[in-house]
């Protein structure tokens, strides 16, 4: 049984100029213990997707529809109190900016212990002991001293380790990491990713890794989901995606990467670079394929009818009318 099943997720923000269709049609499943990567240009709706799963888009301006099923529970229809029991306990989350994601006026020990006291009902002393244990687990030296320090006393890499320790303290079934290494230097990036992979082996946590670094994807993900303009356009095993990309957008991405190189050491070049053309405005509803304005294979059909996201091979889904032409080629 998959631990997470997202189908036809749609998240719109109410805006002055009408709705912002940040997530328009996202579907994927995640098996327990698996790592999937979500890739896509900046603005393609990756963060909004993950925040929709956590139901953290507060303020009453965001509205999600579709279905998000987590361990058999329908996330979108849970009450806020039940949702709070899931957050930080069954689903942990790490954010991009380790500099700003930790509270500057609370010690890191307190910030880790807080989750344990809340969800596992540990005493303060027990939570502190467990927080020290977690800091050791994420390779923070002198954990007993560090635990009483404030975030500004730690380096960026250390802060992200603290975030990981915090997110994993309650041994969640699912960890969502939204660009966890983007803000770090290359060597620290590799260490943090290695640490996440290592912890996953021990705890069996499933991971959703959001990134726009394809080098990272190739290294750690079992499967990859490609997003474009708030839609999932392709889903495949990592190997399949790199060797046989089917969607014209994915092919475009890989072509730019092939040209510029995608090794982890070559950080800047391995980021997704723009494919020529304009991403459609999130304000309009698009009748046909969202990629039509940039697609070399576009036909009239594409402009009028949205392609459905379907399996064309086992374990390989794609949303494109002209996959057959690709497969034959």
């Amino acid at each position, binding site marked *: 049984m998959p631990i997470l099943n997202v189908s036809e997720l749609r998240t719109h923000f109410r805006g002055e100029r009408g709705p912002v269709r940040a997530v328009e049609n996202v579907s994927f499943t995640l098996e327990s213990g698996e790592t999937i990567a979500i890739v896509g240009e900046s603005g393609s709706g990756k963060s909004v997707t993950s925040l929709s799963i*956590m139901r*953290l888009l*507060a303020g009453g301006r965001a509205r999600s529809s579709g279905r998000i099923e987590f361990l058999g529970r329908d996330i979108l229809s849970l009450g806020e109190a039940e949702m*709070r*029991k*899931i*957050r*930080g*306990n069954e689903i*942990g*989350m790490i*954010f991009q*900016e380790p500099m*700003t*994601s*930790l*509270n*500057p*006026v*609370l010690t890191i020990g307190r910030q880790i212990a*807080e*989750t344990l006291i*809340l*969800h596992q009902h540990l005493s303060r002393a027990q939570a502190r002991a467990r927080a020290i244990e977690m800091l050791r687990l994420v390779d923070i030296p002198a954990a007993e001293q560090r635990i009483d320090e*404030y975030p*500004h006393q730690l380096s960026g890499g250390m802060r992200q380790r603290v*975030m990981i320790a*915090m997110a994993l303290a309650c041994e969640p079934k699912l960890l969502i990491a939204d660009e966890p290494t983007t803000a770090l230097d290359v060597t620290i990036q590799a260490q943090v990713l290695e640490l996440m992979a290592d912890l996953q082996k021990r705890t069996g946590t499933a991971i959703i890794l959001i990134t726009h670094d394809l080098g990272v994807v190739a290294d750690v993900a079992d499967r990859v989901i490609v997003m474009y303009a708030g839609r999932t356009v392709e889903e495949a095993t990592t190997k399949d995606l790199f060797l046989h990309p089917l969607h014209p957008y994915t092919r475009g991405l890989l072509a730019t990467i092939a040209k510029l190189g995608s090794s982890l050491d070559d950080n800047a070049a391995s980021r997704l670079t723009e494919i020529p053309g304009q991403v459609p405005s999130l304000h309009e509803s698009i009748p046909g394929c969202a990629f039509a304005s940039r697609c070399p294979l576009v036909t009239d059909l594409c402009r009028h009818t949205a392609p459905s996201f379907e399996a064309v091979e086992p374990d390989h889904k794609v949303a494109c009318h002209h996959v057959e032409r690709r497969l034959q080629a």
Partner: protein
Amino acid sequence: MLTFVCRRLLSTIPVMLFIALFVFSLLYLAPGDPAALIAGDQASQTEIDAIRVTLGLDQPFYIRFVGWLGHALRGDLGVSIFSQLPVTTLIGQRLEPTLSLMLLTVIISVCIAVPMGVLAAANQGRWIDRIVMAVAVFGFSVPVFVVGYLLSWVFAIRLDLLPVQGYTPLAEGFAPFLANLILPAIALSCVYIALIARITRTSMIDVLSQDYIRTARAKGLGQGPVLFIHALKNASVPIVTVIGIGIALLIGGAVVTETVFAIPGVGRLVVDAILRRDYPVIQGVVLLFSVAYVLINLAIDLLYTVLDPRVRY
């Protein structure tokens, strides 16, 4: 830490000196011959001369200032022209009501204004926010004596729940003490609540959009801990600053409130002294208020280091 405190204390010396100079000059800023003014219309020249000698007006300004300062530093603020009692004694007798009034006002204000501001920020743009902002504008624009008379008319005269005026020392029991003080404290709180609620709201709105608030929510924390633990501590520096600056408003307000509610405090003392041109008393009270203001704000500077670990000594 201790060196920091000492350094900050030393740095207030120029301010204190300036205050002292200003307070001392008060006597000479008033038009005309102070001695003649004090003595009144019917006084004879001998009487005026006697007053002039009492005030030391026959000596040059700087000598008089240094002399006065030397005495003040030793806790001698001179003798009241009207009652012939030492100014420190007069102030000492009046200190309890004023301190009680100000302390109660600060407690009421902070307890009401901070939650109000937090609630408004958490519901930004919604009706709760609008109500809080409207109350703040109202509290800021209505003079303290209007609120004071209104409150005493409703609660003391119409409903007969509380005494209309006066003061009962704490030594005579907490309940009567509070009964006398509660209306003046509420009246005096209005402006202060408005001030603190507004800065709390602004500061909280800023903090609530920060990444670490999202992190706190992602941990599963409820609205209460997110607002009052994660956000409020981060928002506290501007709030505490305004609480300190607002003490000046309170001092001015206390003078009016004590008059409205007939509280025998330092405010009343200074009003009476002004009416009688009792300069040593005026100087003493103004000096006391000024020094208190500087010291309170120094204490608040020290509080920053407790509230925000990033602030260095």
